[in-house]
């Protein structure tokens, strides 16, 4: 109830801001930038670990406010409204401050924000060229990982772009599954470190490479206890729409690249984006002192493989009005069944075609072929999504 009140007041506050600015009629770079994103869709079936349900639905509907608070601080608030079945949830995806005036290329961000690990994670989902995040993101980061915490970032004074940073988060949404609710989780659950390099090749091409490491103190699974099978069955069936990561582990390593091309560097008429990421999640099995059942029952010969996932995506905007995307991705995870692990695999091949009437409106048709073993019983399925994503209000400056 408390959270509900808070959410309502956040929206009320946002509305108050909107009206002030409408009256002021003087949108400048320094006044609060207000933007809303409307996302609606029809999808013929569901995908494993995805937020979008079957049929008509609303996706990420967001309202964002951002501005320089003063000469030292910048702030941003993003409220997201999501519907799941008959429930409407209002959540805060971003509520952070960032320093603007620290010396020597340092900056600090604090509050709730998107982690800077990987390539896609710090981008808002409405800027994606596909209706859902790649399977690897859905499996390991709960689609997009945002959390309460703090970041220290540094940009080197070099012509080659070189940024590096560390983050510390609460990590609630990255906790390993805890079906009995008895586990003593650490409050400071997630630490990350990342580094990104980037530059141009001539006038037409730009690139960026990133390496990230995510330490999840609560990433190890809890060993199942043999006599509580019924709880397992009940729990496994529940449809989980939280942003929690489905598959966790103590250590996650991410490598990412992006390459963009536009003739003469002019992005207006046509441009191509190639990007890809690789995930490896290790150390997820319950520690030995807890797992009486695990090693002894199987004689200790079975150690599960690391969980991995990757995707490669190519999006070509061939006129100002049309873009097409092709993405292939797969994820290999391990699921604990009583005392042993089952490997699971999901492969997704996706094609999307989008029509952009202007910079601010997109209508997208997407086809996904998913081939899975064990994932929610999926064996072979074709997913068709028809979606619109439209932005109103301030220009959103998007990251590379």
């Amino acid at each position, binding site marked *: 109830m408390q959270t509900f009140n808070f959410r309502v007041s956040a929206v009320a506050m946002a509305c108050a801001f909107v009206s002030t600015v409408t009256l002021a*009629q003087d949108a400048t770079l320094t006044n609060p930038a207000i933007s809303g994103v409307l996302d609606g869709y029809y999808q013929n079936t569901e995908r494993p670990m995805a937020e979008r349900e079957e049929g008509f639905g609303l996706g990420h509907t967001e309202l964002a406010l951002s501005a320089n608070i003063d000469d030292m601080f*910048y702030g941003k608030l993003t409220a997201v409204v999501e519907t799941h079945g008959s429930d409407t949830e209002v959540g805060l995806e971003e509520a952070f401050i960032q320093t603007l005036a620290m010396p020597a290329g340092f900056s600090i961000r604090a509050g709730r924000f998107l982690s800077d690990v990987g390539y896609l994670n710090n981008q808002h989902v409405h800027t994606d060229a596909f209706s859902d995040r790649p399977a690897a993101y859905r499996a390991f980061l709960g689609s997009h990982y945002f959390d309460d915490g703090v970041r220290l970032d540094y940009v080197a*004074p070099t*012509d080659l772009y070189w940024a590096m940073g560390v983050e510390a988060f609460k990590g609630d949404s990255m906790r390993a599954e805890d079906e009995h609710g008895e586990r003593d989780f650490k409050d400071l659950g997630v630490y990350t470190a990342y580094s990104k390099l980037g*530059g141009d090749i001539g006038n037409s091409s730009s690139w960026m490479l990133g390496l990230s490491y995510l330490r999840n103190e609560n990433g190890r699974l809890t060993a199942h206890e043999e006599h509580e099978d019924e709880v397992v069955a009940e729990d496994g069936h529940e449809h989980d729409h939280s942003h929690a990561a489905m598959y966790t582990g103590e250590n996650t390593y991410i490598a990412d690249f992006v390459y*963009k091309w536009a003739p003469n560097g002019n992005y207006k008429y046509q441009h191509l984006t190639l990007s890809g990421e690789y995930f490896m999640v290790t150390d997820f099995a319950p520690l030995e002192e807890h797992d009486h059942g695990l090693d002894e029952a199987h004689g200790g010969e079975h150690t599960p493989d690391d969980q991995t996932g990757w995707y490669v995506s190519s999006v070509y905007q061939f006129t100002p009005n049309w873009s097409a995307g092709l993405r292939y991705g797969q994820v290999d995870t391990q699921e604990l069944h009583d005392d042993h692990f089952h490997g699971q695999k999901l492969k997704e091949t996706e094609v999307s075609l989008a029509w952009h009437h202007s910079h601010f409106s997109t209508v997208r048709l997407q086809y996904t072929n998913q081939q899975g073993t064990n994932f929610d019983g999926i064996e072979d399925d074709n997913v068709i999504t028809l979606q619109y994503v439209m932005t109103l209000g301030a220009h959103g*400056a*998007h990251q590379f």
Partner: protein
Amino acid sequence: MRINSKFIKASCAAIALTMASGAQAKLNIFACEPEYAALAKELAPDAKIYSATTAMQDPHQVQARPSLIAKMRQADLAVCAGADLEVGWLPMLQMKSANANVRSTEKGLFFAAEHVQTLDKLDSVDRSMGDVHAQGNPHLHFDPERLLLVAKALSSKLVQLDPDSKAEYDAALADFSTRWQAATTQWLALAAPLNGKKVIAYHTSFRYLFNWLGIEQVGDLEPKPGLPPSTSHLADLQSRAKQGDVMAIIVASYQDERGANWLGERTQLPVQVLPMSVGGNDDSQDLFSLYQSVITLLLNLNK
């Protein structure tokens, strides 16, 4: 020991020398567009100048790419058109580059549009009007008088950031002003035959140029700012062109020529690409040759 202390003294002296010469005004300037890089070059010839975009790139749609973040990280001064032209990418660069020097116009940030009256300021703005700028048209570098005002303001900014070199900046401004005013008089005389001519153009890129030379833009290839030419809109322009008073179809160096060519073929009107900025064609090497080239190309159409 002796050698050592001598060596230390020598290296201290060398370091002090480099520090001193480094402090002696080698400003690192980040220009959002090539016209402001060229202006900075006139006013601070010794500065290290980097242009974020070229005349072949639409400055509305620039990616806040890693190389730009790296350049802005090192800048003492960022010079941009302003009036929200760079609103889609400059704030992201400022955020990502974590360089407090170029965050506010009180320090090392300079918006040209803040120092002149812009044309076409709007009292109210709605997205249904297209991607319009409430603060007026930002493509103001094609008005020589406004550009001179910008030059004066930019020179003061240079002095503010680097007061030790005031004499050099004042001299460079005086020299530029003299040459620019003389050139402006010549250009006006040269371009006199263009006065009263009518053109169809793409976007309001040359709004200030046309305003200065007395050219009237009677049609825009864009149905609304930011929207690409549509067939139905082009058909409307075709019937407008039938009145027979239009001199040419004008496109900027970063704009797509297809719509213009479609219309040109059907109306028998010449299609002329004009350099949007320095580097937009081979003749445009600096601000002077840019103006000269644009006027020459327009005069050739009138022959």
